[in-house]
């Protein structure tokens, strides 16, 4: 990889050699697997919905241009895609914008949260406030590592600025809303299904191989390779929260409490 494209806070590495990895058309352990390649076996209604998701990227209608720029930078860290080449990045911002434009709520609102649209707008203001508080810069101007630190302060429930906003909006609930919206946009996309080896739509053609995690004839066997998050990134460190194996002692864990 050309050195000017490498950013130790953005580019994943091969962990033993420390070599930076090139962006790929299809990251993940199922090379050559394509759910879209199976669409002749799907029913018409499903084909229509999934094709539209891939081919028709909705315009930005809810966010202002400035908000959209900030939200894009946030999403680039919430669910980074630096390992994907430009042709195979999954559009997250347009999906979330569309959901907000139509105000498609999920059927409820927590009593300690403002309405859906308002909370997304407030969250962006708060993120920029934290960036200014920590680095005297806008969030979009920060390096990836500094951006992650801003987001982690919300994720961990201890944002160091924007106190007025957090008085009317729970940081953890805002974080969940932001992350969940990003996850829905990413893991509803066939490229993500190919990445994780998920079978995708299965009607009317059924599954035949139900036992021992065997692949269907049109699925691909897992072919693992070794990779690690960018050396300067902090969002790859989730293992700190694991329940460890019983032989080395088992803390009570997970997120704790309830949601």
């Amino acid at each position, binding site marked *: 990889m050309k050195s000017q494209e490498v950013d130790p806070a953005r580019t994943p590495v091969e962990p033993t050699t420390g070599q930076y990895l090139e962006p790929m058309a299809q990251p993940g352990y199922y090379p050559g697997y394509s759910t879209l390649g199976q669409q002749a076996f799907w029913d018409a209604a499903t084909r229509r919905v999934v094709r539209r998701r891939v081919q028709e990227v909705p315009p930005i209608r809810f966010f202002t241009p400035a908000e959209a720029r900030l939200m894009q930078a946030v999403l680039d860290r919430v669910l980074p895609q630096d390992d994907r080449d430009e042709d195979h990045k999954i559009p997250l911002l347009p999906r979330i914008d569309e959901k907000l434009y139509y105000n498609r709520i999920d059927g409820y609102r927590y009593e300690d949260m403002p309405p859906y649209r308002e909370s997304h707008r407030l969250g962006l203001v708060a993120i920029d406030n934290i960036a200014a508080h920590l680095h005297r810069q806008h969030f979009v101007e920060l390096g990836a590592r500094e951006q992650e630190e801003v987001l982690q302060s919300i994720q961990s429930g201890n944002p160091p600025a924007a106190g007025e906003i957090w008085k009317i909006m729970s940081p953890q609930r805002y974080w969940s809303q932001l992350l969940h919206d990003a996850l829905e946009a990413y893991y509803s996309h066939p490229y993500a299904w190919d990445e994780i080896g998920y079978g995708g739509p299965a009607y009317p*053609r059924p*599954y035949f191989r*139900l036992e021992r995690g065997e692949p269907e004839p*049109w699925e691909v066997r897992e072919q693992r390779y070794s990779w690690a998050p960018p050396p300067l990134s902090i969002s790859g460190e989730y*293992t700190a929260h694991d329940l460890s194996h019983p032989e080395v002692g088992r803390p009570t864990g997970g997120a704790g409490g309830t949601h």
Partner: protein
Amino acid sequence: MSDLRALWRSGRLWNSPLGGAFEPPKAGDHMLGPIEKVDCPGRRYREDEEVDAVIVGLGAGGGVMLQRLAKAGFKVVGLEAGPFWDTERDWVSDEAGSHQLYWNDLRITGGSNPLTLGENNSGQGVGGSTVHWAAFAPRFHPSDFRVYSEDGVGADWPISYWDLKPYYALMERELPVSGPAYFPWGDPHGYPYGPHPTTGVPDVLVKGCTALGIPVSAGGPVAINAGAHNDRPHCIYRGFCIQGCKVGAKFSTLVVHVPDALRHGAEIRDRCMVARVNMGKDGLASGVTYFDADRREHEQKARLVIVCGYAIETPRLLLNSACPGFENGLADSSGTLGKYLMAQAGNVVLGRFPELIRMYKGPPANSLTEHFYETDPRRDFARGFAVQTVAPLPIAFAKQMATALNAWGWGMRRVMMDYNHWATLGVLGEILPWADNTVTLAEEKDSFGLPVAKVTFNLHDNDKKLMHFARQKVEEIMWAAGAEQVVQEPRYAHLVGAARMGSDPRCSVVDGFLQSHDIANLFIADGSVLPTQGSANPGLTIMALAARTADYVTAERENILARKRGSRHAPPMRHDLSPQGTAGHGVPRLKGLAPGKKDPLRTRI
């Protein structure tokens, strides 16, 4: 060889169905699954015509009531807030594309342990939540009906297990339920259709339980066809149960009871939101006011109003129907309407395995154990829990990882690449009924100007101890099955209570026949009437109660249509009211245990 492989990889071998293209449904056919068609006649009853019964909400309870009353010859209209699904056109084999199946209108959720609503537990559309339930269909145990007597907590039911038992057996044939020939817990019984094959996650549960000496039921009980049944094909193991079963193999009232109701003259009006139950000067219900799909207001007069809106919308409707003489809401002289709301503890325990699981294959509901269901004096809490298979699709799994691992960013991408290595098991734990777990009216209003529901939920000491114990037990099972990493996500499943039944009108809303204590021609036939919830999925029990109430209304037809109370005697059971071809023979006839007798096979850990 490599040429063959290249051909295979190219997709050319697989890019068209071997038998030709699939035929889309013909114009004008309303499809319920790939084979079953239904005639959807328009209006049967005039705008000003008084019908015998109007049913509000066509889910588990409402669907069964509509079918039973139509077949018994009542003039009946069903009003449903959501659409009348055509499963071939409206449903997709896609996780994100199935969002429309849920109740997505605004509700406020709060309390010290707020419940997630929407896709987690509430449906909208003909069939209600039965279109997106996972279809576990266990019975409640005899002890569930006597929780206060046996444990000094919760409440007793006004009926016993033995009152409901024949209706459980009837429903198991109507749905039908697939499961083992001998199901050892509660009142032991067998199932009419054979168990399903196990897939990755059920294998984990069976392996873990077996290693620990915990008995386990594999392949059921689930209301999913193990063989073709009428015009419903058998399961094809595609794993989209909670996205709506396009195959029609999974039971819903949409594909079983609704077509039979239409054949017998029921009228269904979909996309109709009921605003209030109207009261006459005689202190009896006179019908309902509702908004149609074009937001026009209508009144439907009826001699009998049956509310089946489930645990949130039923109390909301009755609270929104407050009027002179019923200032706090209808049927609330006891002050218990909207109280004693329950959800089950639904902690999900996730284990990563060195081998591949591919949990998206096969119905998420497959295997379970009720070994920990009953109160065990050696534990420090009352009642118990079940352990069941769950198998989230990628988006739901990613959200669980966000909570269980605090994963985001690169960590989320990395753990999701291991999706096929994870298996998930769910606790289904009994949370007791508490007066401070409520459905009330919020200040916010919906698009019709009706106040929305506010749901308040708090865990109490017994609930917390139970959840802690249950979670640890499921983690043990996961380790014993060979997991190399185990995490958990706390959550809740199902919603019941908030309009509970009881024999004492001073502390309950309806009686054992689901007839309101206060208003003789108002019935509630849904999950909101449950006084306690056990550790069993509530669907089968809701439908058994509705079928029993339908028999009661039919037997007491003259009194009830004259808006009087019935005799309060158990009615004769009407086997002839089952949908055509569903109540056959061929079920193992296990002799039921006498009330109070312990099952010699039952052991406790």
